[in-house]
């Protein structure tokens, strides 16, 4: 325990150092802002998700301007609180939290063996708590506040400890408190998804350290790149609800974790059948329902864009579930329960970046591609390469996310999201999407690797073989499922 205390102290000290180093750039930025009036006059409201802001402005003005500028729009008419938007965003926030607890907890908990059920459920629950605090302290600020000279890559520390957020500060047409909490639930589910890759063998102490570091150094920057005014949003990468930020990010981190930790004892020889697929079905269903908050909520408004996002989410999910079910029926002779729910999650992942930009027919194709692609990744590719991604965090979330991100560039409809895709004669969008995917893969992959090395030096990432064989529940948490 004393060593753990030492490491925690070290983490806090590192955070404090980071805060100090940001003092200088902040001062410099103030000077820059004095010369650049619009940024100063635009209050917190310039913070909302860049992609979404662009999207809404494009909706309002009939001929979509090339890269409409959110700041300009807000200068003309200062945003007022919209009670309809606020009500929907309060609801969405609750829905997205429900995706992690109990949704993901049950989905993952049902798929592991009986001896590891509690440890797996504990991971989702603990991540929820850890990321809530980290987000409140620093990550929200790093993701959504202006980073001055470094703004293309990382936000600033203006909102350290949520400084400046009152009950009357707005973010677009909703209170900033709602926007911050809504984004917090995204920051929570992303690292929780990674747990699927290292299930059955990660130390809990290592998980705690890993999640704190990952949330700050991987999630916050990538969220900033796409939504907080960073370079990917600036390039025009379309990511409505987090295909790159959430799913590719978590999936790639999962693959790196699976490779770093190595295979589970007995992988490929022992029976690793799920403990209780009914739990997994309940979990997947809660994910599906919660995803309406995730995708339709990413409109950050209660309007037609949110409605269309909800419709295409439902369509793509059903299509992907059926695609997985039928291909499995053909290849493995039986349509399995685990198969249809896996397909549904693959479809939810793939439609995530596309949900504000495609029409229902585009959703149908994205769903079909995700169901087939993720089936192939989670069965054939995993077996061929031989990594042990326990619950297919990579096979479903990274592969589904990449399929969705790239197909967003293909199927984007100008009349819906203000951005034409390949099918409307804009092949450049596909390339832009590829750049977004590649940047996410590189940062997530390398960063996760470095964080794993640090965590491994501090406490060791993997449990002993004896603990792994007897089970994590009794050894790490002192409890068992009877």
């Amino acid at each position, binding site marked *: 325990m004393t060593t753990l205390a030492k490491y925690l102290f070290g983490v806090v000290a590192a955070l404090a150092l980071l805060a100090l180093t940001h003092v200088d750039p902040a001062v410099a930025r103030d000077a820059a802002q004095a010369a650049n009036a619009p940024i100063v006059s635009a209050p917190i409201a310039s913070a909302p998700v860049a992609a979404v802001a662009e999207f809404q402005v494009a909706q309002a003005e009939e001929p979509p301007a090339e890269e409409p500028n959110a700041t300009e729009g807000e200068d003309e008419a200062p945003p007022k609180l919209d009670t309809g938007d606020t009500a929907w965003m309060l609801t969405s926030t609750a829905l997205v939290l429900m995706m992690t607890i109990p949704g993901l907890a049950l989905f993952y908990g049902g798929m592991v063996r009986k001896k590891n059920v509690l440890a797996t459920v504990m991971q989702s629950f603990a991540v929820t708590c850890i990321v809530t605090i980290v987000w409140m302290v620093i990550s929200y600020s790093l993701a959504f506040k202006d980073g001055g000279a470094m703004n293309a890559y990382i936000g600033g520390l203006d909102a350290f400890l949520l400084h400046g957020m009152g009950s009357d500060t707005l973010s677009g047409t909703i209170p900033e408190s709602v926007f911050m909490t809504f984004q917090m639930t995204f920051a929570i589910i992303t690292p929780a998804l990674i747990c699927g890759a290292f299930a059955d063998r990660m130390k809990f102490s290592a998980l705690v350290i890993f999640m704190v570091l990952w949330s700050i150094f991987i999630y916050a920057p990538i969220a900033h790149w796409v939504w907080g005014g960073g370079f990917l949003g600036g390039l025009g990468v379309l990511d409505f609800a987090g295909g790159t930020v959430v799913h590719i990010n978590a999936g790639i981190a999962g693959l790196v974790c699976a490779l770093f930790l190595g295979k589970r004892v007995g992988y490929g020889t022992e*029976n*690793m*059948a*799920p403990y209780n697929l009914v739990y997994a079905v309940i979990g997947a269903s809660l994910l599906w329902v919660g995803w309406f908050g995730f995708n339709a909520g990413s409109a950050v408004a209660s309007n037609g864009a949110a409605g269309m996002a909800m419709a295409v989410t439902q369509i793509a999910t059903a299509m992907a579930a059926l695609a997985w079910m039928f291909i499995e029926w053909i290849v*493995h002779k*039986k349509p*399995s329960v*685990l*198969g249809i729910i*896996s397909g549904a999650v693959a479809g939810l992942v793939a439609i995530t970046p596309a949900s504000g930009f495609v029409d229902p027919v585009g959703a149908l194709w994205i769903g079909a591609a995700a169901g087939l692609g993720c089936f192939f990744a*989670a*069965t*054939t590719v*995993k*077996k061929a390469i031989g990594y042990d991604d326990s619950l*297919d965090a990579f096979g479903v979330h990274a592969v589904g996310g990449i399929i969705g991100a790239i197909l967003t560039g293909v199927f984007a409809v100008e009349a819906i999201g203000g951005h034409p895709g390949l099918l409307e004669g804009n092949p450049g969008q596909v390339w832009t999407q590829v750049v977004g995917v590649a940047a996410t893969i590189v940062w997530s992959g390398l960063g996760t690797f470095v964080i794993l090395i640090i965590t491994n030096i501090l406490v060791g990432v993997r449990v002993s073989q004896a603990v792994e064989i007897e089970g994590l529940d009794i050894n790490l948490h002192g409890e068992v499922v009877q």
Partner: protein
Amino acid sequence: MKLVMAIIKPFKLDEVRQALTELGLQGMTVTEVKGYGRQKGHTEIYRGAEYAVNFLPKIKIEVVVPAKMVDKAVDAIVAAAKTGQIGDGKIFVVPVEQTVRIRTGETNESAL
């Protein structure tokens, strides 16, 4: 007295219980067990990962009967538990030396 021990398919339990009750036998002990015989196991597939499951779930019934009832009891179990498919199970008959009813202290056949 004989102990009749039958391993049967789980879904046949109720039919077997009924058949034995009709013979006038009062009471039995039932256990959920796993095992294999000629049926061997089966294969489960989860996201493409195949697992051979060697031990299949069965039900074990234990009934102690008077010696003269053994053949009837065995026949009743066979009739009730038979599907004709592989994996119907087996019946073992073994001698019992003594029986005591705990509540009254009765012994042997009067304790059955």
